């Protein structure tokens, strides 16, 4: 199981990073999404793995429970990354509508020439 989880995290991270390094906004957003999957599972895994030991206290006395703390942390992380992704999506859309293309790299030469009004100092 550990190998399954670790390798899944690895694959998600690799995919996420690759997409993160693309040149258009949308793939980058996908990359961020993949990365947040990866990091959520990673954070969750930091509490080690357990099967059928949900941290729901059972009314019938003693039972084993998995580490609840990382789960709480992941929940917080999920919510936050949701808010972040939402903002990212909107800003990406905004940048696209303003610039009429969804390139994520800005060509500074272009920008400079646009604002040129004369020779340099």
């Amino acid at each position, binding site marked *: 199981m550990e190998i399954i989880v670790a390798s899944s995290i690895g694959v998600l991270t690799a995919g996420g990073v690759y997409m*993160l390094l693309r040149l258009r*906004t949308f793939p*980058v957003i996908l990359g*961020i999404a993949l*990365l*947040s999957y990866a*990091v959520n599972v*990673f*954070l969750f*895994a*930091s*509490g080690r793995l357990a099967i059928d030991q949900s941290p729901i206290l059972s009314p019938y006395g003693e039972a084993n429970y998995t580490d609840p*703390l*990382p789960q709480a*942390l992941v929940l*917080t*992380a999920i919510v*936050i*990354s949701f*808010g*972040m992704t939402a*903002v*990212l999506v909107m*800003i*990406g859309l*905004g*940048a696209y509508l*303003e*610039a009429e293309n969804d390139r*994520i790299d*800005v060509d*500074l030469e272009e*920008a*400079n020439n646009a*604002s*040129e*009004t*004369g*020779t*340099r*100092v």
Partner: protein
Amino acid sequence: MHWIILPVVLPALLAPLIGFVMRHDITLARVASMTGTVLLVAIALGLTALASDGVTHIYRLGDWPAPFGIVLVLDRLSALMVLLTSTLALIVLIHAIATGWDARGRHFHALFQFQLMGICGAFLTGDVFNLFVFFEVLLIASYGLMIHSGGKARMQAGLQYVVMNLAGSTLFLFALGTLYAATGTLNLADLAIRVPEIAAEESALVRVAAILLMIVFAVKAALFPVQFWLPATYSNAPAPVAALFAIMTKVGAYAILRVHTTAFGPGMPGIEGLAGNWLFPAAIVTIAVGAFGVLGSRHLTPLIAFSVVGSMGTLLVAVAAFSPTATTAALYYMVHSTFAAACLFLIADLVVTRRTSDVLYPEPATVQNGLFAALFFAGAIAMAGMPPLSGFLGKLLVLDALREPGLIGWAWTAILVGSLLTIVGFARAGSTLFWKSTALPVPQEDGTDAVAAAMPATSTQVAPVMLSLAVLAALAIFAGPVSNFLEETSAQLFDRAGYVNAVLGPVEER
């Protein structure tokens, strides 16, 4: 005894009111926002007074004992940072209102307050995951402020800023996961106990966590090689926001200071020499990057942004020494560079809004050319570290603190040559903007020319600049008492045992 939480709760409750109740009435929002900020300054002063007794004050949220619940920790350092934040915020807010920046888009004041909440929260927390949460709060608020009032360039820069920081936040989570997996705790004080217990030969995980956290903070602090995002962001942000961002880089520096002295401090077998080894050379290069940028910029605001990068380099060179003396210097320089940067961005705003662009190219002299020239000159010498303002003293303190033969060569050369390039860069920019322009004919008052139509700056618009310059001057004049406080601050920072006892209680009670 609820003082400590106030810097978080006050804006946290005020912001929703502004954003959701007063969102149709800018005047009301301004009054509320201003009142809140003034109150925040007052609270910060109170906290500083409270902290200056040298005791590390603890606030247990939810009344849960550390390390199981989250605790706020108020010591001199956090008090200082909160005070710094609130003062800067007040100055910036006046500018934003006086220039009408706040009315050029929606929800400026709500986001502004949320931003303050996030920053204060980050400075006060004693829990690394909570630090992450408040990083996110201040970041998402900063995204909103960054793209305030929109526009192509700003939106694109904003997008890059968001993406960069999302990557950073992801790394933050990876680091925290590793840290929890390695130590089983999130509380700084608890870490300060557990990390030293980790033997060097079993330290791989905690080492990774430490270095990854360092990188995360380095992104915020604009340290080479993760500083590339800063110039475009700062130079495209609305002026008051850029000025407020002067504190954002300091959040990174603060986090490095706090976490890498308390949790991964010097003298722990597990992470021996990990932080400094990378931080120092990186900081040196950062100085160079900043200086080159200042001299090489074609535009005014990027020039200032690069000077910010350079100042972060100088600051982090001092931090990298991880010694009380150097930290004192670093803190002094931190306070100085925050106001210097803010001051310059605010001046730039006054100037650029009266020009057709911020290209460093002479345009006919605007109204109040002399005044702006004087202000710019003052801001520039502060930033470049020339007397009489605090920059020079800060620079001397840093240079003086780095006496190890190993450091002197690189650090001194970088800092001194860096400030020479910076001086020359600012001189060239200033003489182009304010002197060369006087040689050009003043355009006719036909209203068509933006420059001709430019209104003179009102006293309230100039006030924030004056204020920040006054702070810089005061910082220089009262350098003695100030660095007394800072000396005690860094002493307290390096007293790990004191911190741990304050948070977790004395050893026998644990």
